[in-house]
């Protein structure tokens, strides 16, 4: 797959000895990206389990219930291990805070873990099957939320490559989650029963690919970290694995080998996507040009319309003391005052 560097003029900018303006995300590998994978896989598996239950596919239903429960609980354990103070994990649930995607996400994940575990237990043990089914239906809501809230989690930061991608990231994550869940479901279900899992996987791979493509095109300069360095390599691998796995998933019903190949490729693709996204965020925060250049352009664009504005970034420089006007025109103040 060839990929020329985008035609963006070499960014000129000033900085403090090339030091980053932002702090890069402190989240660790493999914890954070593996959680992103597991959470997505769990969420989409719940959606598969619900549909399998509703359409009377018990084999697929069981596999997806187990995958959903395992993914959510393993993911939650990884998140706890990721904390600087893991013993304070429950502090996540001491408040509910709508302005914090991590707070909202903690509650979503708590619900998803509990409900998916109940849904699995009900199915495997046969104890209180109705309660298990009720829990399963509830995961029809928490599942898709678990698979997509993580996009808001990373986008709601100052990291330019993440923040500016807030439109496409949820679709990218949802697609990656569907591909991952479809892969696990097709690997864990007899081929004759795994038709919908293969379809989910293929649809997910297509969604992820399209969302990723749209994102990189729209972001341009700010999206450079997705194309370069280690993140670029991971995401190119992810793209190849996801596209290949998605295409294989379409025909994977024909043989066990094809199923295995497709499932492994899609799983690896989803993991590469998650590692690549984290790495791109780090690279985006670490280079001050991604922070400074778009902000400087924004300021310059805002100050241009001022007809005879100060040549030193009029919009920024000054504002009327005690006045609530802070538009570009306030810039004349200091000149007047100075003369």
């Amino acid at each position, binding site marked *: 797959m060839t990929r020329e560097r985008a035609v963006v003029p070499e960014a000129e900018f000033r900085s403090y000895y090339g030091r980053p303006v932002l702090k890069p*995300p402190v989240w660790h590998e493999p914890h954070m990206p593996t959680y992103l994978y597991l959470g997505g896989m769990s969420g989409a598996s719940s959606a598969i389990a619900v549909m399998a239950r509703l359409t009377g596919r018990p084999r697929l239903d069981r596999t997806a219930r187990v995958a959903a429960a395992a993914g959510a609980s393993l993911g939650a354990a990884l998140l706890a291990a990721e904390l600087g103070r*893991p013993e304070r994990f429950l*502090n996540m649930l001491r408040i509910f805070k709508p*302005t914090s995607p991590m707070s909202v*996400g903690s509650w979503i994940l708590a619900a998803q873990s509990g409900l998916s575990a109940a849904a699995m237990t009900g199915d495997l043990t046969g104890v209180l099957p109705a309660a298990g089914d009720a829990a399963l239906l509830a995961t029809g809501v928490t599942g898709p939320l678990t698979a*997509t809230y993580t*996009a808001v989690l990373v986008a709601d930061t100052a990291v330019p490559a993440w923040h500016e991608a807030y439109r496409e990231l949820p679709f990218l994550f949802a697609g990656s989650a569907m591909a991952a869940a479809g892969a696990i479901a097709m690997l864990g279900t007899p081929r*004759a029963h795994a*038709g919908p899992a293969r379809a989910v996987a293929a649809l997910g791979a297509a969604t992820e690919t399209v969302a990723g493509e749209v994102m990189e095109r729209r972001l341009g300069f700010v999206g450079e970290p997705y194309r370069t360095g280690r993140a670029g390599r991971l995401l190119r691998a992810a793209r190849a694995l996801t596209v290949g796995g998605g295409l294989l998933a379409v025909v994977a019903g024909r043989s066990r080998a094809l199923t295995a190949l497709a499932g492994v490729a899609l799983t690896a693709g989803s993991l590469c996507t998650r590692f690549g996204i984290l790495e791109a965020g780090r690279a985006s925060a670490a280079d001050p040009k991604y922070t400074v250049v778009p902000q400087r352009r924004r300021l310059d664009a805002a100050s241009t319309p001022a007809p005879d504005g100060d040549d030193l970034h009029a919009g920024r420089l000054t504002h009327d003391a005690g006045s609530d006007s802070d538009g570009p025109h306030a810039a004349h103040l200091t000149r007047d*005052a100075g003369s």
Partner: protein
Amino acid sequence: MAERMGFFTDTSVCIGCKACEVACKEWNQIPDDGFVFEATSYDNTGMLGASTWRHVAFIEQSRPVLAGDDEGVDRWLMSSDVCKHCTHAACLDVCPTGALFRTEFDTVVVQADICNGCGYCVPACPYGVIDRREGDGRAWKCTMCYDRQLGGLEPACAKACPTDSIQFGPLDELRERAEERVTRLRADGNEEARLYGESPGDGVGGAGAFFLLLDEPEVYGLPPDPVVTTRDLPAMWRWAGAAALSAAGAVALAFLGPSRGGGRR
């Protein structure tokens, strides 16, 4: 609620003595952040972090000297950076535990006994101020000496500053004083003097700690036009909601077609 308190850091009179860094370290008992030789100027702390709550930047600017070919240091800029205590603080918005809170002085403070080190505040800050301390596991940053303020004292850095480059007081008063100062400097021919973070109309709703700078903010390592990330949060949730619905719809779509549940094998 008491009056909103703030810092006005007038870098035009900063002499780079780092008394603020030292006073901050001593009062707040912040651990060593390493003896690093940056080889850039007299800056050996680099940037604000979990164990550096005041950071003095040194900028040596050289320009071609018109008379000859030699490039000499034209001027030094020195500036003591600090947490901005934003009106719309991203760190505070995204903190999932409530460890970060807004005090009665309208400052933003981390409660060390609540923070579980999730690290979310770190990439959320548009200024790269707050950080997680390795070994300790929790997030730390300037408190504007909350404890001293409660005792009616000014923060240690402002107290120690020998040139009054760091001024502490009610934010409204500081803004007036800063406006007078920048007007004066510009009248004296210092055309590059500008205020940074003083406007309630900026992307963070105005900073509780603002600056008078003598060059563009990015030269000091400051973002030229920071915006609180949570400003776009409602839109983010809308896009995520659309994606969640689409995913649910796509999975449902995948199940269309003949049911094989009770069928073969």
